[in-house]
């Protein structure tokens, strides 16, 4: 069954026809051509496909596309400002060595964004909790946690 849905994507209203079995990830990477969101497992286990739907970090590979009707979705493309301006979270990931192969990075950054938006000064344990669904095979997480901690205070001022 096909259905035409509309939602807010990175601040703009979009219309797209989706199949009933399609997940948000396939719609983002397919018809909407936003390949910044990655598919690492397709089963909600790795977090590479994390996007933010109405302020919550979700696995877009498990999220039925139908259900974003009327909602607001942010992908990694939406976090980057005009003229290639990186958000301070993205910047902190770059300068702290939190990125290696980079495949987990968009999801990791959006999980961080959702965390800091709701909890601007998280403890180490809260950071680990918020990122526990995002797998990274390269970094051992140490520099990722450092990046999140570094940005935490500054993110608060920006809010």
């Amino acid at each position, binding site marked *: 069954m096909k259905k035409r849905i509309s939602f807010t994507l990175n601040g703009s209203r979009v219309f797209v026809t989706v199949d009933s079995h399609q997940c948000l990830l396939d719609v983002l990477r397919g018809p909407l051509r936003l390949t910044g969101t990655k598919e*690492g497992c397709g089963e909600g286990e790795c977090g590479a496909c994390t996007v933010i739907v109405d302020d919550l970090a979700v696995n877009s590979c498990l999220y039925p596309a139908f259900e974003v009707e009327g909602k607001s979705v942010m992908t990694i493309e939406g976090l*980057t400002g005009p003229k290639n301006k990186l958000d301070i979270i993205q910047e902190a990931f770059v*300068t702290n060595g939190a990125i290696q192969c980079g495949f987990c990075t968009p999801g990791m950054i959006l999980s961080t964004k959702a965390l800091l938006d709701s909890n601007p000064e998280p403890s180490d344990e809260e950071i680990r909790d918020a990122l526990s669904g995002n797998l990274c*095979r*390269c*970094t*051992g997480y140490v520099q990722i946690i450092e990046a999140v901690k570094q940005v935490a205070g500054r993110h608060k001022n920006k809010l």
Partner: protein
Amino acid sequence: MKDFCYIGKNAPRPDGPDKAAGKAHYIHDLQRPGMLYGKIKFSAYPHARIKHIDTSKAERLPGVRAVITANNTPEIRFGLLRDNLALKKEKVRQYRDEVAAVAAIDPDIATEATELIKVEYEPLKGVFSPHEAMKEGAPLVHETDPQGRPRTHNFLPLKFHHESGDLQAGKRAAKYVAEGDFSTQLVQQCCMGTAGCIAEFDMNNNLTIWAKTQIPFLAQRDFNRALSDMGLKDKNTRVIVPTLGGGFGTGLDTHAYEYIAILLAYQTGQPVKIVYTRKEEFTNLSPRQSSHTRIIQGCDQNGKLTFREVQVLQDNGAYTSWGATYPSVMMMPATSLYRVANVFFDAKLVYTNNTYCQAMRGYGNPEHTWALESNMDELAENAGMDPFEFRMLNSNQPDETTPMGLKISTCGLKECLETVAEKLDWKNKHKKGKNRGVGMASLIHVGGGGRIYRSDASGLILKLDDFGNVNVYHGGVEMGQGLHSVLTQAVAESLGVRPEKVFINPTDTGTCPWDVGTHASRGAFMACNTAILAANKLRSQIFELAEELFPIEVEKNLKNHLKKNPGYNPPEFDLEKAAQRERFELQDGYIFIKDGPREPRLRLDLGRLLRAAHFRQQGQMLTTEVFYDPPNELPDFEKGYGNISSTYAFGTQGAEVEVDTETGEVRILRMVAAHDVGKVLNPLGLKGQIYGALAQGIGYALYEELQSEKGKIQNPDFRDYKIPRTHEINFPIHLEFIETNDRFGPFGAKGVAEPGLVPTAPAIANAIYDAVGIRIRDLPITPEKVLEALQKLRKD
């Protein structure tokens, strides 16, 4: 010591911003016009004869463009021993064997079509452990060798053997002996970006393939051979490496899925993309081999090692990849970690009907160091010595040649051991805690290339443009490890330009000079050494141009400046006379006279010089190429002798753990890693390499295991195959880098990509022994094994 402008300072990744913005393009993101999607039909049995394949229904499915099997395509043989076929004929030998493949206009149709292919099998008895496979009369995985000669057993025709000194004399001299059988499990590399490729032919039948590879040039050779097998003689392959979602050894071989994409692309005349799902990655991509090691070591009454005897048995699986040469690396710690004179090493590899294995970070070294360093602790205990003191006593030292003929140049092993002992508070913690313990383990690894192929070389091209930009073409592969960061630093440092002016071009066999591949921790070592050579060559070319053009251009500068600033008083300086090549210096992109006045108008922008050289009669532009083959040797592995690397990396890791005797759970309280890296090139990237490797080492030690039941992978997802998450790395990790400034290393540096996971498992196991007195000998150290061992300990 020379002061460096960029080396030794934090260098964020050049591709960092793109990756952070989701703009880096992995194979999953690439599209080609008219591209089709390929899907493979895998075997339903671990060992069976293929009786019949019916593809008719699949062919009729709308949207399907090609269905191929071994029956309608040319035979393509590949693999280290050429014992593997792109599409299997007559027989399947493992569950993941490729029996057919489809190209269709979308991935769903391709998947549906593979399900419509019906294959009739006659199941055969299989062999699922190397012990089983070695028995007389065991079913043969391969009845013939690739040349068609009959085979009578399942052993691989690969020999790895070493004997030095006098083993029996070493045994007689030993007062204390320790022996043990150790084993390691199958583990998966778990790249976050799964494997895949796009194959495309042009109308001249030359192939372009976007491949997730670490060996673009050896892959080119393999693919050209396949083209020849397909009847496309003298046709060429261009291998382009997109952004890689991790490598960890998965890219050291060419794979059946790549040959299948090539066959489908040729058949359809359209580009074909094959990308593995996560499940396919777990079940159909080769993991790290499992291994069985029997080790006996002895020492005299003073604790000096007198002999080491090692026998290794490897489950190779059904086909042979480069990973089958793991014992070539195992031989290195076996003969050369700690000073030991009388050594016996022998490794056997056996075909089974299990998934065939390939390279993974460390390449045999974690497997072997697991046995060796666990056994070192056992021997220390038998000799009544402190394991730290015991290691110090037997430590390698600079400028020594080991029984295998490894020429150790610099060696920071003692410093690494001391650092770990100090940071772990060894004196106060070893043998002190109740259910808490400390342990350590060390490593030796190739640090200056690793010659397992006849060439260990690498080339590099520096191309200057009119703007003073430096375009770099290098065949090494950036897979996340940070190669392009250090290469940028090395070019900027040794040429004398700012890092922002250095542009590393994508790895492409059509544009980059040859490189054997990015493996053996050789990336930074090779890239930076080639960068230094190329920069030196380019500097002399620049200074040669400057002899003629520098005085003219600087004169123009001065005149212009005088026009605008009539009061300007130019310095008294004879430009013509000073303009000699040996008097020039290039720094931050400016050329100036080394011993001349420090005056901004007396220096010349590099771009300006290059434009002056370009835009004149018989103008010229500068491009430089170098090719560097490191001073190491291809060992004779049957004799076990040869200096495989030009320098060696050392390191020691320490763990403090707490064991829950009720649940068997091991909690890591602290890790310390001290590594002899020669010289720190980029602290940011170096830390990332060690942290990341350490996390992989912890997974290897405590929980990662690809479970195989009669050849079938039982846990092909991240639910059941556990890799470390943020919660697992919740303890302090202390890193220390020992700088030994190696004479062969670029700026003194040694390779460091693999060492970080080599000694992690035995360090943890030794800490567990210190905590509760149990010795686990098979990885991973699960709570069940700990509980079982504790119960046994209580009974005894």
